[in-house]
Structures are given as structure tokens and as C-alpha cells.
């Protein structure tokens, strides 16, 4: 047990994470690029226009993956924060805070693409619809975490405080979602938002799934890279970082 624990600890040390992620990120990046190109070609050329929405349906190939990643990113951030808080794993703290701005960007992207699509479809940029509202609250939760992280001077304290906020938010996200949904059903809502969902055409489904997968890989590649840079910055006084720098300096 002790041995296992030590192995685990070693695997999660900033240094070994740095090496491991350094090897992993190119794989993630290249597979993301290939899948994204395939998904975009499939989505923009080979998928049919929608019978009602016409060509503007093609925005879903960006919008749906962004919305999915806004939630996945929050779960990733809160999960890593939990690991960091409970087991004091530096790598997890770093990963959690590296995920926050990326997840916030995807949330913002989902809101922007959604309202761009909403203008021709619903006739308005913004509706106080359940999903839109909970997505907006999600963005505010992300921004709160980022603001708290930036406000606390000590970096470890900052990431642990922001981690607690992320966890409180994680409890709150489902409550917000359902409260907004009930609020919306209690009010009389605009009926334009009630889209009937026909079973999706396979030529649309495949590019959509490709794009979702590619975006997830993109998210992971960016977060892993950000966490690597962050760890080097946090551990700049440690020996492994100094060795890293001098080794690179020797090569040049």
C-alpha cells in the first residue's frame, strides 16, 4: 500500500506530469486537427441543409461542441479542484485553474454562436430561455472562479480558494439548471423556442460527433499545455525546472 502510494505520488509530481503531458500533447493536438478538418468538411460540404433552418443549421457544428465543452470544462475544473483540495496534489490544482479560462471561453463561444443563430431563427439575439439563462449563469460562475484566482496573491492559496468556489458552483449548476427550467415553464414562454427535434440525419450526426470529439481533444491539449507552463512558473525555484532550463540552454 505504501509502495503504491509512493508510486502514485511520483506519477503526480509536477516533474513527471511535465514530461508525460509534453509527450501526450502533440498526439492530442494532431488528432484534434485531423478530426476537426474532417468534421468541418463533413459539416460544411457533405451534410444537407436543414429543411426548415436552411444553411444556418451549420452553426451547430461549432455551437453544440462549445456548449458540451462548457459543461465538461466545469466538471473537469471542479473534479481537479476536488483532487487538489483533498490530496494536496499540485498538478491537480494547476490543471483545475488551467481549465477555468478555457471552459469560460467555450461558454462564451456557445452563447455567441447561439445568439447569432437565434437572430435569423427566433428573430432575436436573446431569449430568456432556460438553457440560455443557465449557460449565462455558468459563464458568471467561471468568471467568479477566475476573478478569485487572480485576486489572491499567493498562488497555492489562490488555487485552493478558487477550487472551493468551483466546488460550490458545481453543486449549484444543476440547481440553477432546474430552477431556470421550472421558472421558464411557470412563465408563459415564447413558443418559437420550442423546436421540434426530428431524429437527426446521419450525414449531420457524423460531422457533429467528429467536431465534438475534436473540440474535446482541443480542450485537453490546451489545458494540459497551460498546466505545464503554470507548473514551470510555480516551481521555478525547484531543481527540476533549473535542470530543464540548463539542459535546453546547453542544446542551443
Amino acid at each position, binding site marked *: 500500500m505504501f509502495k503504491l502510494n509512493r508510486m502514485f505520488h511520483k506519477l503526480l509530481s509536477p516533474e513527471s506530469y511535465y514530461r508525460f503531458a509534453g509527450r501526450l500533447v502533440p498526439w492530442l493536438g494532431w488528432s484534434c486537427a485531423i478530426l476537426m478538418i474532417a468534421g468541418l468538411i463533413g459539416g460544411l460540404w457533405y451534410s444537407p441543409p436543414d429543411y426548415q433552418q436552411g444553411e444556418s443549421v451549420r452553426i451547430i457544428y461549432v455551437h453544440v461542441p462549445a456548449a458540451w465543452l462548457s459543461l465538461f470544462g466545469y466538471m473537469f475544473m471542479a473534479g481537479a479542484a476536488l483532487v487538489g483540495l483533498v490530496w494536496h496534489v499540485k498538478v491537480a490544482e494547476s490543471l483545475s485553474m488551467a481549465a477555468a479560462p478555457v471552459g469560460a471561453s467555450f461558454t462564451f463561444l456557445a452563447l455567441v454562436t447561439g445568439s447569432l443563430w437565434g437572430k435569423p431563427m427566433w428573430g432575436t439575439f436573446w431569449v430568456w430561455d432556460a438553457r440560455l439563462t443557465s449557460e449565462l449563469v455558468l459563464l458568471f460562475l467561471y*468568471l467568479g472562479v477566475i476573478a*478569485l484566482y487572480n*485576486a489572491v496573491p499567493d498562488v497555492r*492559496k489562490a488555487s485552493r480558494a478558487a477550487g472551493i*468556489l468551483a466546488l*460550490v*458552483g458545481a*453543486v449549484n449548476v444543476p440547481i440553477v439548471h432546474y*430552477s431556470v427550467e421550472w421558472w421558464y415553464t*411557470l412563465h408563459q414562454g415564447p413558443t418559437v423556442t420550442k423546436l421540434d427535434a426530428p431524429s437527426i440525419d446521419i450525414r449531420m450526426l457524423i460531422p457533429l460527433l467528429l467536431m465534438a470529439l475534436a473540440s474535446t481533444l482541443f480542450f485537453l491539449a490546451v489545458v494540459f499545455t497551460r498546466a505545464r507552463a503554470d507548473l514551470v512558473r510555480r516551481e521555478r525555484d525547484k531543481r527540476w525546472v533549473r535542470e530543464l532550463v540548463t539542459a535546453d540552454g546547453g542544446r542551443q
Partner: protein
Amino acid sequence: MIRRTALHACAALLRRDLRLAIRRRSELANPLLFFAVVITLFPLGVGPDPARLSGIAAGTLWVTALLAVLLSLDSVFRADFDDGTLEQWLISPHPLPLLVLTRVLAHWLTTGLPLVLLAPLLGVFLKLDPHASLTLFWSLLLGTPVLSLVGAIAVALIVGLRRGGMLLALLVLPLYVPVLIFGAGAVDAAASGLQPTGQLLLLGALLVLSVTLAPLAGAAALKIATE
């Protein structure tokens, strides 16, 4: 030396907090004055038309109560952080979440409860009918403790920071969304002649959830802030 149990400590803490609050009466009145003044601004802003006022009454009263609680949050841990009492909390043998819960209770008794009692009166200003005013009372009675509890977590996170005011609003307000929706929803339902029981029960559920979880999160936040 007499060994005192955790409950004794909590009772002593509550007594001390309440006594301090009573000695500083003007501070006690500030959230109430804020509440009354802001509610007075709304008829001046949107016009005195009774139909329009009763239309926005539920949301206005709830949002204003929420902001009054937000503005009062800073005092929850500030003084004790500055003079080192929080560190004594940490090294005391009593469970920190219990102390946090007691402090939140004191905060609610001195800010939340007066707001709850004042709100139906201000409902008259906004042409809220008596049935809806009663619902407003119940919804605030269930909802304001949640606001104090959740707010205590956020204020514990930033207690060490010098300028936390704006940040506190950013951290807290998104977390208040469900309480606002159910609270204002209950009053709206009562004003349009429906049963507000569903929303009130959901507010009760939120209260139970936050009473159980918020002290733990608040204690963890205090530990980080004082380490």
C-alpha cells in the same frame, strides 16, 4: 478548568455576537434603511401606476433584499479576521463548521430576520396584495438564511483580501440565482392567485441543503484564508 462542550461554545459565541450587534444599533439599522430606500426608488423610477408596480413587486422586493444581504456580508468574518479571533477558532477544540454555522445564525438574526419582518410593510408601497405579502414573508423567511449561508462561504474565501467588495458580488450573485427564482416565483404565483406551496417547498429544500453543506465549505474556506 471546566471542560466546555461545543454547544456551550456556540451558545457563548451567539450571545457575544448578538450583544455586540445590539450595542451597535446604527449598524443594525443600515441594511433595513438600504432596503427601504431602494424600494422607494422603484416607484420613482418606473412611475406610480399601481398595475405596473404590483407587476414588478415580487422581483423588486426579492432582488433588493438579496442586495441588502450582500452588502451586509462583509462584516461576517472581517473583524474576527483582523484581530486574530479566527485563528483562535481554528485551534479551539470545537468543530469549525459548527462555529461557522453559529456565526451565520447570528448574522441572519441581525440582518436577515429584520428584512423578513420589514418586507411585507414595503410590499404595501409596491401594491402587493395581502395574500402575496404573506407569501413574501414566508419565502424570505426560508430564503434569507440560504443567502446568509452561501454568502458566508464566499466571504470566507475573500476575508484575507483588502478590496473584496466588487469581487464578493461577482462570487455570490450567481450562486443566489436559484433562491431568487423560487422566492420571487412564489410571490408571483401568490399574486396571480396560484398556490405558492411548490416554490416554498423548494426554498425549504435549498435551506436544508445549505445548512448541511455550507458550514463545511465555509470552514474549509476559512482554513485556507488563515493559513
